[in-house]
């Protein structure tokens, strides 16, 4: 198991380095002078030169690259061109908001999706299965901003059960009320994905020989389903949910915009609009880190769920 973890960690480091290098060169290779891009078309030559110095673009490329890598390692991701505050501080300010949203929605997705998927698989080609399949297909067809806007219109504007802007929070009640709509928006979409993955994994597992063995020894059907089958089905579910992480993060950006909630998504959109390119660099790094950490967690969960992994 330890060799397995070390190997995954090594892979994570290589990935991080590759992304950092890619980010560094994209910014410099892409046509158009970043300083020009930052300052806009009307900037004077002097202003652009000054900006180049400020961004460190006047120095040799190798030096810039080394500084960039070294800085990224030390947590020095530069200063935001717009706010003047360190990028890391800006990111750390909003990271908890995004984490809280994604973890809550993953939780909602699993709680709804796994039992629903099992239920559909056990009732294959009967009414519960059809209803579940159709509902989950509809769920994952929703662009997160469309579903978010619908929730907002219905529950915040029409019914006024929840705040329209979910940034202000007073006490635990206020925090929950602010979190509820965005978390459900993301969570229901996640539930749609998890339902479908669980259903197909369960269908596959239920046709395995060992399920027949369990039935042949007289184990009750519910134990066959929830102990023998689901434990095996969770292995592919974990992997695929890990792969849907990208969908989750993308949807969280849209959700944060719709519910006007602070977070990485709002930060990156702001940086894009204001051409704050040191901030963008930092955001790329933080997203890569998040992806890597979640992949590691997925691998660990996978290793915990599947005794065969320890062999590697």
């Amino acid at each position, binding site marked *: 198991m330890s060799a397995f973890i070390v190997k995954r960690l090594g892979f994570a480091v290589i990935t991080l380095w590759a992304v950092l290098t890619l980010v560094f060169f994209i910014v410099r290779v892409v046509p158009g002078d970043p300083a020009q891009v930052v300052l806009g078309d009307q900037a004077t030559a002097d202003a652009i030169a000054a900006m180049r110095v400020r961004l460190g673009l006047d120095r040799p490329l190798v030096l810039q690259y080394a500084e960039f890598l070294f800085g990224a390692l030390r947590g020095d991701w530069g200063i935001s061109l717009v706010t003047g505050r360190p990028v890391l501080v800006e990111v750390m300010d909003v990271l908890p908001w995004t984490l809280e949203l994604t973890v809550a929605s993953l939780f909602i997705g699993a709680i709804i999706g796994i039992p629903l998927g099992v239920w559909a698989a056990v009732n294959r080609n009967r009414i519960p299965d059809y209803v579940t399949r159709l509902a989950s*297909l509809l769920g994952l067809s929703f*662009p997160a*901003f*469309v579903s978010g*806007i619908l929730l907002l219109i219905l529950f915040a504007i029409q019914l006024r059960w929840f705040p329209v802007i979910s940034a202000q929070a007073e006490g635990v009640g206020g925090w929950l009320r602010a979190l509820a709509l965005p978390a459900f928006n993301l969570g229901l979409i996640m539930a749609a994905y998890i339902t479908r993955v669980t259903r197909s994994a369960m269908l596959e597992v239920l046709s395995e020989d060992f399920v027949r063995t369990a039935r042949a020894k007289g184990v009750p059907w519910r134990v066959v389903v929830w102990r023998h089958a689901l434990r095996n089905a969770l292995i592919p579910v974990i992997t695929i949910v890990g792969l849907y992480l990208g969908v989750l*993060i993308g949807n969280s950006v849209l959700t944060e915009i719709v519910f006007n909630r602070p977070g990485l998504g709002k930060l*990156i959109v702001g940086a*894009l*609009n204001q051409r704050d390119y040191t901030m963008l660099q930092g955001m790329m790094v933080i997203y890569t880190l998040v992806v890597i950490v979640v992949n590691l967690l997925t691998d660990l969960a996978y290793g915990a769920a599947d005794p065969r992994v320890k062999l590697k």
Partner: protein
Amino acid sequence: MSATARPRNAAIAATIRAFNANKTSWFGLGVFILVVALAILAPWIAPNDPIEQDIFSKLQGPSSTYPLGTDYFGRCILSRLLYGARYSLLIGVVSTLAAMLIGSTIGILAGWHGGRFDVIVMQAMDVMLAFPALILGLIIVAVLGPTLTNIIVAIAFTSIPAFARIARAPTISVKEREYVEACRALGFSDARIMFLHILPNIFAEILVMSSLWLASAIRTEASLAFIGLGLKPPTPTWGGMIREGFENILDSYWLALAPGTAILVVVFALNLLGDGLRDAVDPKLKGEQ
């Protein structure tokens, strides 16, 4: 027996049978064809010019001149929806086709060659796959600029790894089948085996996935436009229309509803279609229906 163990004509018959078993996929196909037809016919059936502003009739309700009402600039919502469909479908179809061609080629090559090449290529693909497609798309469009071509490039780029994965798995399983080994024993070249013996056996799976990824591409395009990185206004795009509606959500939220419904209907129809097709070609599910 697996789907790949059937010849073309029998496979088509079985596919249609399985497709028939799932009535909702016909519904999906019908809706999608309707939307395509409406988009193609937009210049002839749209009641008004989608870009022309009429300040005196802004924010109107449905009327005979404006069947779905007008927006903030007094533009006809129905006409903008019809023209918007053209952009959504164009961007979706072209980017999905490009991703399918490039991604499947990568996947087939990786699966066929195996070894280090496979490991390195697929790990790169996995990282790209795990990286949020929307963020990647956002950055590419932001850096390159929001033109039609750049948006297509960005969306295609983000779905390449998915196609690589989709093509690689069946390539590996087909490669291990004895008939491919027999081809090698008969002295056939690699290219002949890959394109004449492997590709036809995995093409159905790739094609099915394309319909699901077309849905995803249309959604991504709308998301980009919603964030403000779509085609520049006043070009009508569904995502852009929702954005305009959303900016005034407190007093005129219905502006967001029509394009929102349009996206949902198209994406849902494509997903229904792809889902039915997948059941129809999935070797694991076949024969049980």
